[in-house]
């Protein structure tokens, strides 16, 4: 029988999929293993952390490592709750402003016509290639010149513009039919109402995706705390967790268990957010192409 072409995105399991499964499964397992490992490690009691030969699986799970983590922060002078507060404040501020600014800019660049619009769009597209670590020094100088060193602002403002987020949202706004906007306009709606009442409800998947991307940038960002802030009371959870995982503490076995717990605390919110919103992400990515 002649080749008929197979079906992408099949509805049910077929025999032909077995060889694909066999090819992919080892890689999937290999990828997931380190993450399973850190989960096990975070819940290992002292005698299992010390066990020789080392064991992968935790037999007597305990919360000791998490308790030690809290204790360690108490003795360091700044309570863990302060770092948590800083991280929450900074993350919320960045995600919230970034979403408002990106969606507004996306609406403008996609649906409103004015001089310079295309240039701006091209600059943002070029900025997709922006590698933040490449310009950490001039960025530091800019923050310094603006007098933001040692403030929350230094950890919030530089992280708000995220070219990928704007790009993805703009691609999604492009899908909104112009006729909807024109109809609203004829009914007397102002641009701000069109943005709020027509555009925003229709681009929820893109907003969710942008939220994930921005969240990932901020939540684990350490650069800002490291370079722009000297006052420990203003630094973030990510920064604190990293000082725990630095060379001195990971050399002790107890330090390793504590660091594993810290890593898990940093990782879980990311994972949870992505799991909840993953459908929206795939929907947005369908329009991600650069033309």
């Amino acid at each position, binding site marked *: 029988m*002649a080749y008929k*072409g*197979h*079906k*992408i995105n099949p509805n049910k399991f077929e025999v032909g*999929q077995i060889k*694909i499964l066999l090819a992919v499964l080892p890689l*999937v397992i290999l*990828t*997931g293993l380190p*993450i399973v*490992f*850190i989960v096990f*490690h975070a819940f290992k009691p002292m005698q299992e952390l010390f066990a020789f*030969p*080392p064991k992968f699986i935790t037999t007597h799970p305990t919360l000791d490592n998490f308790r030690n983590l809290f204790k360690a922060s108490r003795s360091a002078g700044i309570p863990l709750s302060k770092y948590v507060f800083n991280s929450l404040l900074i993350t919320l501020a960045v995600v919230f402003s970034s979403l408002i*600014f990106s969606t507004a*800019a996306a*609406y*403008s660049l996609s649906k409103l*016509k*004015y001089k310079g619009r295309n240039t701006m769009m091209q*600059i943002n597209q070029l900025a997709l*290639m*922006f*590698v933040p*670590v*490449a*310009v*950490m*020094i*001039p960025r530091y*100088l*800019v923050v310094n010149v*603006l007098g933001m060193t040692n403030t929350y602002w230094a950890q919030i403002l*530089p992280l708000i*513009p995220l070219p*990928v987020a704007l790009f993805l949202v703009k691609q999604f706004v492009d899908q909104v039919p112009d006729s909807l906007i*024109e109809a609203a306009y*004829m009914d007397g709606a102002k*641009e701000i109402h069109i*943005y709020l009442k027509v555009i925003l409800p229709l681009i929820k998947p893109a907003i969710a995706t942008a939220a994930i991307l921005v969240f*990932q940038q901020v939540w*684990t960002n*350490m650069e800002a705390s490291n*370079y722009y802030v000297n006052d420990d009371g203003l630094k973030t959870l990510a920064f604190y967790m990293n000082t725990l995982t630095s060379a001195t503490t990971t050399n002790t*076995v107890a330090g390793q268990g504590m660091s*594993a717990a*810290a*890593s898990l605390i*940093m*990782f879980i919110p*990311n994972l949870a957010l*992505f*799991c909840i919103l993953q459908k929206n992400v*795939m929907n947005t*990515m*369908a329009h*991600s*192409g650069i033309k």
Partner: protein
Amino acid sequence: MSKSSKIGRRERSNKSGYLFVLPYAVLFTIFILTPVLLAVVLSFTNFNAIQFPRLVGFLNYINLITADETFMQFVLPNTVKYALIVGVGGYVLAFLLAWALANLPKVPRTVFALILYSPSMTTGIAMTVLWKIIFTGDQTGYLNSWLMDIGVINEPVIWLVNTNYLLPIVILIGLWSSMGVGFLAILAGILNTDESLYEAAAIDGVKNRFQEMLYVTIPSMKPQMLFAAVMQIVGAFQNGQIASLLAGNPTPGYAAQLIVNHIEDYGFIRYEMGYAAAVSVVLLLIVQIFSTISKRLFGED
């Protein structure tokens, strides 16, 4: 005013467009555009972060090419190796995995995609400790213990200090965490290819899944392929920092020194910011070269 002229005026020139784009544009200009331009300007100066920068022309670039042995001997070759394997190799792997997943039913596909994507959420600091534990240099280390168990090695290897293993380890971690946004974009692209194209191609003589991938799937999702390529290369360079988190900066014997670590070394450890800026410009140019190649491959001509 008549309806059509009202819309007509809205379409031709709409000043409120500036208002909507303004907040983003201002922050973009201050924190992305200015630093990039500043890097270019500073790269032509001698600047120690205390005195005012002094113009030195192309001296930094000349030194980089002729006098910086570390750069020529270690940093550049390491970076090229890393970029080819993690950037290009990771991209090919992302495509193959996405394609394979697209051929599976929804539930296993979603679960697998989530597992493959999750390491990219751990970039930077979140999981550094994980690798430190696995690659611990004595017999209590997980990898050492396991390899000794199955008889591959007889005595523990000091992984994170050994110059032979450091770069491969960094590359491995880079690959592990490279199934990010680009991978998701490719997966979405493949899932959205028009089914009828496959039927038509089969009639036109396409014989197997491999030919389908080459002649139908890839051409029909070029824009996604381009987006993914840019994301992949940017992600690869951004992750380069892991080397200094694992082994300190400079890395032992410069074995895993990548260009981002070199920038950090000169900028924040030696305070030779003009020189560091020149290295930054080189990095931005390398990224630019990679994305130009991607545009040649996948751009709509």
